């Protein structure tokens, strides 16, 4: 790099802590407002998971009331994982890729916006939508599926599904950089459904062939769904909670690492 760095002697009014907090709050508020006002986003991210849950857990559930209630409880965790995965892949990963490809992120980066505020806002929005999905699913399960969870179990389930935004969001971010902005939506769609299936979100993992059970261990949604099942006492997996959390932390750093490397590669290209 032959460029020379000039001494930084710019005098600027320092930003106070509270004005920084205000930036983070406004960024998150407007991100959520922006998403809520997009009908297709609100519908596809919230209504689809609810529809699938009603269809698979409640309408098509078979057997006696006890097994039906168990199905409704089990699928609360798995289809809940499916729902929040979509929110984070699209609302976080694809959304950033699109704004990068359309030049909007560059407009924001030309301003003194702290980049952390931008990412935090996307994450907070994904978490908010995830929380809404988890609570609506649990409510429907309680009202129509005879799902009975202890308060702590319900809180654990919602907590896991909200926290899932972190690994799923970083996965979406990495996919957005791997696929490049314009092809991010189809690529994510292409990965979303097969990965959900292989992670046991559609058919319980213990009913899938052995090879699937092995493959699932390298898929983030498997670990999220296992933690969610653990929270509501439905897990049949012998692995410890710690091992699932470790795997998810590992995935998150891997995805963020990929995103950072590819971000550096793209620096100075037409999209930032």
């Amino acid at each position: 790099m032959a460029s020379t760095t000039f001494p930084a002697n710019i005098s600027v009014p320092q930003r106070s802590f509270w004005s920084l907090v205000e930036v983070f709050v406004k960024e998150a508020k407007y991100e959520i407002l922006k998403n809520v006002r997009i009908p297709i986003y609100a519908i596809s991210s919230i209504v689809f998971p609810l529809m699938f849950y009603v269809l698979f857990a409640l309408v098509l559930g078979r057997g006696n009331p006890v097994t039906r209630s168990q199905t409704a409880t089990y699928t609360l965790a798995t289809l809940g994982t499916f729902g929040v995965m979509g929110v984070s892949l699209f609302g976080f990963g694809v959304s950033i890729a699109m704004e990068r490809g359309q030049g909007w992120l560059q407009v924001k980066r030309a301003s003194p916006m702290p980049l952390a505020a931008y990412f935090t806002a996307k994450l907070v929005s994904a978490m908010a939508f995830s929380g809404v999905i988890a609570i609506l699913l649990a409510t429907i399960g309680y009202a129509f599926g005879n799902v009975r969870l202890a308060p702590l179990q319900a809180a654990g389930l919602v907590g896991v599904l909200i926290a899932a935004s972190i690994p799923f969001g970083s996965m979406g971010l990495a996919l957005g950089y791997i696929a490049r902005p314009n092809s991010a939506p189809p690529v994510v769609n292409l990965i979303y459904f097969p990965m959900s299936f292989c992670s046991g979100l559609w058919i319980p993992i213990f009913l899938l062939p052995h090879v699937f059970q092995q493959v699932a261990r390298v898929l983030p949604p498997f670990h999220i769904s296992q933690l969610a099942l653990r929270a509501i006492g439905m897990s049949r997996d012998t692995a410890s909670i710690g091992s699932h959390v470790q795997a998810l932390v590992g995935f998150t750093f891997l995805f963020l690492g990929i995103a950072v490397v590819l971000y550096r590669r793209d620096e100075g290209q037409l999209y930032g």
Partner: protein
Amino acid sequence: MSTVIAQIPHVATPPHRGVARTRNLTKTYGSVVALRNVDFELRRGELLALLGPNGAGKTTLVRMLLGQASPDSGRVAVFDADPRNEDMRYRVGAMLQVARVPETLKVREHIDLFSSYYPKPLPIAETLRIAGLEDLKDRRFGELSGGQRQRALFGISICGNPDLLFLDEPTVGLDVEARRLMWTQIRDLVSRGKTVLLTTHYLNEADALADRILVLQHGTIVAEGTPSEIKSRAIGKQVRFSSRLTLDEVRAIPGVLTAAANRQKFELQVQAAEPVVRELLNRDSWLSDLEVTSAGLEEAFLALTQNHHSNGSN
């Protein structure tokens, strides 16, 4: 490239007055040279227009001044600091070309958010007034017309009350009326003491607004001067002919601004046709296919910048 462009001497300025400057700035994207050894200085309080056709490197230069791309070689400084330094952004506003802006947020909301990024922003009502957005403030961005969108982006760029403003093709795609309105708003900013770097591919826009114009072509500054200097060169005649003269001989004729040759076919840009044609006929009495056309302002400007990619040999 067989084109020669008459040099207008660079005006020397005291270095401390520069708000932004580059030295020998070069940037390539793969095999494409976006900028080649660009030297320029933006002086405090002036409106400098960067004029050139699409692909001349205007946007690349703006992106490097914003610290969004790193130079391959050379230096770039804004407020005497590396533009990749985050603090520079508190004093800078930018209106960039953007394919899509989040459409479900209202104009007022976008401006409220961007204002919060700056330590001493303009009051929101003031930003709305300057950018002519008062009647549009409660409209969602997606409901705005092309001209209104540009005004909203303009509002976003000025809301932080920056000292230095980058306007990257602010009037592209606007109709005449919307363009005039934008011009008024830009003039208003300069009269408030802001420094503005404007990129455009319209000569009349640079002429209407700028204190100085830099003409950029294929990543190189090919002319620099006041609007009247640039215009006097652009409003000329085009002379075409076939001759056995060499390109160097033709270039040496007084009054020739640019000369290009493809085998024996020449194409010149001249200020006045008569003295040049007289001299040409003096030097080559066999000269043939003589054709003199008066280019309009825009055509002449295009001739200045977009000349003859195909005429590789001379």
